[in-house]
């Protein structure tokens, strides 16, 4: 394995600080030379949370950036009163996968498939609630890192809400597959997705049968079903979920992975739509994957063996670690942080918490070149803006619709690759104008679906200089450029009303280039 050699004195100093246990409890977090305690706090809040709420930067600076991160990593799902209070308001969380399946069956019965058959309104509203919930959790949860990772893993193991049965399978996929494993072991998550009807339907493994077998599943359309294996899931499992596109597998491997997973299927929706292994369509022949022999005569068990093998393959470890570094460090992550993540993975048997801890402790994470250098995705932009102005989204879908319009429809990415992370994918001029519109509307309290409390951010004042100072500290974490300050002050010049001035200053700050980055 390649290791980057660091000769910079600041970096070795950092390493020394990081490795010393005492440093963990020091009030000031370690930082790459130039970062102050507040800048370090802002940096971890931008990357390992959806940005700071007013006051968060000071709190985390006091606590220590890495101590804050450790607390985030240690947070248990049920120890989050803010989240618990929020979740009480969502009817959808009272529905289990069986309830959703019943709704799907009823819906099909009530409205035969036909010309633009409208969904029954209630189901549509519930699905809207499912999408709205994702935004609300990201805004309000104290355990921010769990929300960030839930979003990361959903993209990594993407399914598409609008594909047939996935309309009713997705809610339980989010609640029962992705979220419980957001900060768990990768292997467990991989197994859970491989056994989830949402994934098996989305990537058509439900139709994949040994030659001569009969396919099953709710998506077959009329006559003419084909038999034989369907390679879709097998291919994406290798290319996207585990090894990566350059992970050294061949078309033959894809075929044999598909053969091993024949029979991994789902019950019809009328029977609950749960996972089922169908021995009659499984291919019991011998297979070879990546040079490893899977002898003939095995059933469901060889799938487990395969998935465990893939989860531990070095190509998988590197692929997933690199992707994590792209998310948390830089669009083009330096080798050093990827190496650190890989080492932590191997030491911890794929414990995501240890991998994240290692990334945050790598010198690359703290390098001046990566701080505030990543563009926020539309989801990150909307959620961080809501947090910045102390907004509480209501339980409707409206904030999710905003994210959709900015180019990242939640749960509606058709490609199994999930949403991209690199900035060039998100710098669309129409969408950027949309961000500015959202910023201004939100700050002036004209954004339906979000209750804004600007008093939490800054008190109204007729002293414009003090106002801009406060907006810089509280909304932009002190990152305001001289140009932005000049433009905002110019705009405030003839605005006498303190409340209007405050809304305008915050709107411009949220729409500024500084706030588009993290």
């Amino acid at each position, binding site marked *: 394995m390649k290791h980057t050699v660091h000769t910079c004195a600041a970096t070795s100093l950092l390493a020394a600080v990081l490795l010393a246990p005492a440093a963990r409890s020091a009030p000031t977090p370690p930082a790459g030379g130039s970062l102050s305690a507040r800048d370090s706090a802002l940096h971890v809040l931008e990357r390992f949370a959806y940005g700071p709420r007013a006051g968060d930067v000071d709190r985390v600076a006091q606590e220590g950036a890495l101590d804050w991160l450790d607390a985030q990593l240690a947070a248990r799902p049920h120890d989050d009163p803010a989240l618990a209070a929020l979740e009480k308001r969502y009817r959808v969380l009272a529905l289990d996968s069986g309830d959703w399946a019943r709704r799907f069956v009823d819906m099909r019965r009530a409205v035969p498939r036909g010309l*633009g058959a409208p969904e029954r309104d209630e189901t549509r509203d519930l699905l809207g609630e499912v999408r709205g919930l994702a935004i609300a959790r990201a805004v309000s949860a104290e355990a921010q890192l769990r929300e960030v990772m839930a979003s990361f893993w959903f993209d990594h193991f993407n399914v598409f809400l609008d594909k047939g049965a996935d309309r009713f399978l997705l809610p339980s996929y989010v609640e029962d597959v992705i979220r419980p494993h957001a900060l768990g072991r990768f292997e467990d998550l991989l197994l859970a997705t491989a056994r989830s009807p949402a994934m098996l339907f989305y990537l058509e493994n439900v139709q994949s049968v040994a030659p001569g077998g009969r396919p099953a599943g709710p998506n077959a359309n009329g006559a003419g079903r*084909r038999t034989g294996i369907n390679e879709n899931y097998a291919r994406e499992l290798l290319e996207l979920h585990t090894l990566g596109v350059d992970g050294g597998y061949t078309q033959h491997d894809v075929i044999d992975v598909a053969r091993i997973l024949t029979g991994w299927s789902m019950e019809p929706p009328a029977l609950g739509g749960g996972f089922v292994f169908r021995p009659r369509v499984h291919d019991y022949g011998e297979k070879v994957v990546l040079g490893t022999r899977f002898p003939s005569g095995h059933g469901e068990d060889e799938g487990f063996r395969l998935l465990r093998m893939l989860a531990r393959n070095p190509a998988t470890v590197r692929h997933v670690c690199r992707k994590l570094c792209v998310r948390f460090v830089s669009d083009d992550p330096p080798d050093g942080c990827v190496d650190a993540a890989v080492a932590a993975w191997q030491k911890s048997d794929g414990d995501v918490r240890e991998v994240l801890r290692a990334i945050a402790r790598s010198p690359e994470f703290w390098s001046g070149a990566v701080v505030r250098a990543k563009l926020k995705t539309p989801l990150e932009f909307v959620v961080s803006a809501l947090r910045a102005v102390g907004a509480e989204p209501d339980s409707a879908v409206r904030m999710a619709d905003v994210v959709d319009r900015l180019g990242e429809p939640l749960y509606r990415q058709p490609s199994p690759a999930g949403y991209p992370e690199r900035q060039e994918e998100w*710098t669309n001029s129409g969408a950027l104008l949309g961000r500015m519109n959202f910023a201004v509307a939100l700050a002036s309290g004209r954004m339906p679906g979000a209750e804004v409390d600007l008093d939490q951010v800054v008190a109204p004042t007729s002293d414009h200089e003090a106002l801009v100072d406060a907006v810089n500290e509280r909304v932009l974490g002190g990152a305001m450029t001289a140009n932005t300050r000049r433009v905002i002050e110019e705009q405030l010049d003839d605005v006498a009303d303190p409340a209007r001035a405050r809304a305008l200053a915050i709107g411009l700050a949220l729409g500024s280039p500084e706030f588009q980055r993290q």
Partner: protein
Amino acid sequence: MRISRRAFLKAGGLAMVSFGLDPLFLARAAYAQGKAAGPARAGRVLVCLFQRGAVDGLSMIVPHGDPLYYKERPTIAIPQESVIDLDGHFGLHPALAPLKPLWDAGVLAPIQAIGSPDPTRSHFDAQDYMESGTPGVKSTADGWLNRYCQHQREHDETPFRAVSFGPELPRILSGSAPSLAIGDLRAFGLRAPNDAVRDRLTRAFEELYEVAPTGLLASSAQEGFEAVNVLKRVDPARYQPENGAAYPNGRFGQSLLQIAQLIKAQVGVEIAFADVSGWDTHVNQGSAQGQLAARLGEFAQALAAFARDLGDRMSDVVLVTCSEFGRTIAENGSAGTDHGRATAMMVLGGGVRGGRVLGRWPGLDPAVRFEGRDVAVTTDFRDLFAEVLSRHLGAGSLDAVFPGHAVQRERFVGAIRG
């Protein structure tokens, strides 16, 4: 008023347009100049329309000369006396009557039996493949229209080069080349209670982004503001279609109206996209009248209005319709049709070799059907798109636009003169 250096350099005459200098003349000159260097053809426009839901090609371009068609569809076939005959064997659905003059003028060509080499009957997958341009390959990140823009870069000087009408950028246009999703031209830009506030807000944000340290962010913001400035001149709210063109109400008709408007405004549109749904006719599809007829009627009216509105300008425009797959030859038990294979598409425009039904017709005989039930695909949709890109827009190599597909001119159906 300040002119940002980049906007000035990049948009040339276009930037001046918004500052009150002689608009069209300068815009045209700058635009033509920009084009001279590249291989692509100046002023050419491709309009791509997606009929989402799998339109029944046999109801659009009716094989009324084939008795099997009537035998397989006892209640939903279009009666021979209602079909608008085209060539003795095929005819238009009566609801497509507004397109007949375009056929007569030789600028409309239907292509029969066209579709995807991938046999999926899933709407989702088939649409995905038709938009990614890579049938069978799910992980393709971008759409083929975007890849075309990536590889023919000389059009970059205008923010309107690739536009899609709808709230979100569709898969077909997503990717690293700049493209605009426009819900409604009249609402594009910053929202404010009145023009004065809007102008002021626009200027403020323009200044915020002029010196943004991230180049990509700054340049795409400035593209957005250039678009806003250009649109201000175009004044979409006051647009009146020409030549008595009457667009149908509804999103699709209005999208075509706004595409026509952008083309006329000469703001550098090269690719325009719009979609229209409601073609998934499993139940009570109807015949000469009914649900499908109503959808086809609106569709044809919109296309005909577009051609009429653009008038002579249609010489630079080619419009292509597409749909993810066709429907079963036989009607089902609900007087509808289920998911099939090949469908029919249409090309319309001045450069089209129209007045002929194109594509090799495989026939309806059970022996030549796909899996014994569907119209077989004889033209790969990529070959039609490739022909339009290369013969109409003058695209060079298409290997990167349709990866994994060796584009061969011998496979072109001959829809475009060239």
